[in-house]
């Protein structure tokens, strides 16, 4: 048997298959007897019904057999679940933070990324949390899912068996950008992973800032090429004249450094006219904020 894309796949699929096959058999039996009786005991053929009050033996049979069956199903699901919940001790830990509407992955050495890069054949332990509302990290190809809850640490683990790139979805509704809160798991060879993992963080304020725009998920809603998305574009934003709505009143502003910083720290204070007031507060340090401003200045 193929090992599956991850070690988890067979734990899920075998349970699924076992219960599905049993259920199909039961459904076919119930439907067959229902239709068979309707035809066979049709009033034209069978004008006089036979009055049968019930049958104790039958009641016992169809109580006990289903009970045994469902307990088996429960047990099967439980055993596989236990396996899925207990990561081996040597697993590589990655911190995952869900936020409206992006995922951020942080590795042991402090490296941050907005895709989940992992080496082939090594167990990975994800520790999930959220910066704002409830999200849920779901990798369909791996058969794993767990909610990212603010104020709580939850966990997931898997060992990838095939090189490739797989979808990450958010499966807990989290507002306007929910269906675009996407990312990828990239499974690479150990060598490629080490190369990526060892690359130093970008140097220079501007490059660091550009990296942060991606890692913090800003680019989920803002573009750098001048097109509009959920929020206004970053292209040429520094020094741009905008009409904003502040406390229900329109006013003209110039997007200077002070304004841009305020827009990150208090996104709901001024809303650019024509855009919805939905930007979440994304946690940044003051150093990170300076880098982001430098990057925005450069996006002409």
């Amino acid at each position: 048997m193929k090992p599956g894309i991850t070690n988890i796949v067979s734990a899920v699929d075998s349970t699924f298959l076992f219960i599905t096959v049993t259920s199909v058999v039961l459904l076919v039996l119930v439907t067959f007897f229902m239709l068979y009786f309707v035809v066979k005991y049709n009033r034209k053929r069978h004008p006089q019904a036979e009055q049968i009050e019930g049958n104790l033996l039958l009641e016992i049979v169809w109580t006990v057999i289903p009970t045994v069956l469902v307990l088996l199903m429960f047990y099967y699901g439980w055993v596989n679940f236990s396996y899925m919940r207990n990561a081996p001790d040597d697993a590589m830990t990655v911190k995952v933070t869900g936020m409206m509407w992006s995922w951020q992955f942080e590795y042991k050495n402090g490296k941050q990324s907005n895709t989940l890069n992992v080496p082939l054949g090594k167990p990975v332990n994800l520790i999930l949390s959220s910066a704002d509302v409830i999200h849920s990290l779901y990798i369909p190809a791996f058969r794993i899912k767990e909610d990212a809850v603010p104020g709580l640490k939850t966990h997931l683990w898997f060992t990838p068996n095939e090189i490739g790139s797989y979808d990450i979805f958010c499966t807990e509704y989290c507002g306007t950008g929910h269906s675009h809160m996407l990312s990828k798991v990239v499974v690479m060879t150990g060598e490629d992973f080490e190369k990526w993992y060892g690359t130093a963080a970008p140097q220079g304020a501007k490059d660091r800032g550009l990296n942060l725009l991606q890692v913090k998920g800003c680019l989920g809603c803002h573009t750098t090429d001048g097109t509009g998305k959920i929020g206004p574009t970053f292209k040429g934003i520094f020094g741009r004249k905008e009409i904003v709505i502040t406390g229900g009143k329109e006013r003209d502003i110039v997007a200077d450094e002070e304004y841009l910083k305020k827009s990150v720290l208090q996104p709901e204070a001024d809303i650019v006219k024509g855009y919805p007031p939905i930007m979440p507060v994304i946690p940044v340090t003051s150093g990170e904020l300076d880098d982001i401003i430098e990057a925005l200045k450069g996006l002409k």
Partner: protein
Amino acid sequence: MSSFYSDTGQRSGIAGWMMSVDHKRIGIMYLSALLLFFSIGTSLGVMMRLNLISPGTFMGVHTYNRLFTIHGIIQIFLFIIPGIPVSFGNFFLPLLIGARDVAFPRLNRLSWWLYLAGAFLVLASLFLGGGALDTGWTFYAPYSIKTKTNVSLALFAVFILGFSSILTGVNFVTTIHRLRAPGMKWHRMPLFVWTLYATGWVQILATPVIAISLLLIILERFFGMGFFDPLKGGDPVLFEHMFWIYSHPAVYIMILPAMGIISEVVPVFARKTLFGYRAVAYSALAIAGVGYLVWGHHMFTSGMSDASRVVFSLLTFIVAVPSGIKVFNWVATLYKGSIRVDAPLIFALTFIFLFSIGGLTGLIQGALSANLHLHGTYWIVAHFHYVMFGGMGFSFLTALHYWFPKMFGRMYNERQAKIGWFFLFVGFNMLYFSMFILGVQGMPRRYFDYPPEYFTGHLVSTIGSWILVAGFVIVFRNLIIAIRKGPKAPDNPWGGTTLEWKVPSPPPHENFEEIPVITRGPYHYGNDKK
């Protein structure tokens, strides 16, 4: 003798209806309101399906998020939960137990007014304040605390609807205890009455929990109390628990009376007493009882402890058994019957088939390991619609076709009803079965947009929604024509044995000239030669 339609009491016109305490008038008014909201909710669902074959062409993401929220709130709180008890329960409970009305007729009228008030507030919330809410019908915190849309008014509306539900529960439980005709022992009650009894208790005991949870959200929104926001020391998982402590039993509020209707209809068209009467009756109580303890299966990926996930999974599997017992007994009732396949029986057998699919897929997602893949995907949406729409919805249609002659005193066109059924059956399965496949493929629910590999499934599903609508048009056109010019219905068109068939169609204001004395079980076809 004049029917309850012409016997208006002291008032006439609209006041004769709105001020009436006659359980039959209240039942008819509820039925009309339910069907109105059902048609609104269904239209919203069809619009969602339209978006999903071409995301963004017909509406924006914000509109879509509001649509699925309002679709859920209307279908669940204004249609399915009140559903069968307030319409058919109100009309037929007193008739089935040989009573002239429910125990508290004025309380019944208050329930109806509260329902109307709640419905009005739900609709008002769509246009006031921040506009229609976008939280999904589950109102999960902290999103429901942070969104700028009008959550508070909508939650307050659901709070009011909860009181309507509690009062109906109190009323029905009391009625069943106190107003049964002489000789109607517990084991001579029709099965629909048993299920209304079990439902009544669930309404009384579970509804206050959601009332409190929703109130806490409102307090948190207005005063920043911090019950559920972790930044203030609250716990978002706590809200999930409180929400499902009600909303899971609420599933049984929806499905138990639906099962009761199937238990009424199958014996009548098989000309045979119900197989295993006691097993069917007690399994309703078992479902209601165990159903309180399985709410955690909505939270297998929520971050709840692994130990509680195991316990909730075990209980979930246990609650499947009594539902299975019911299905087996219904099928056994057909054995050696003398079966006539009229429209009500077709709808009832369709219920058994679709509800079985809904129940069996529940086993698949109830298994812990499989759930971690299926939770939060279209699989859940499919399962839910098979149980709610395939179950409660088709049971509602069964009841409508079974009791229509009694309620309106007219017959509908049998052929048209069957053609309508055919469209509904085909459309329903295209619409929702494709969602099972989408779910296994990993398509998350509540997505406005999706990667291209899911397109085929969405397309089949949307085409199914159009066929389903065609079915509804045929079915309801048929019934509306029947109300206006259908042939007069006899008192007992199907040869039923329960008490409602012993009074004229439609029944007189007082139901029974003389309260009947009951000497045997409800489905006695024994030696009565036709």
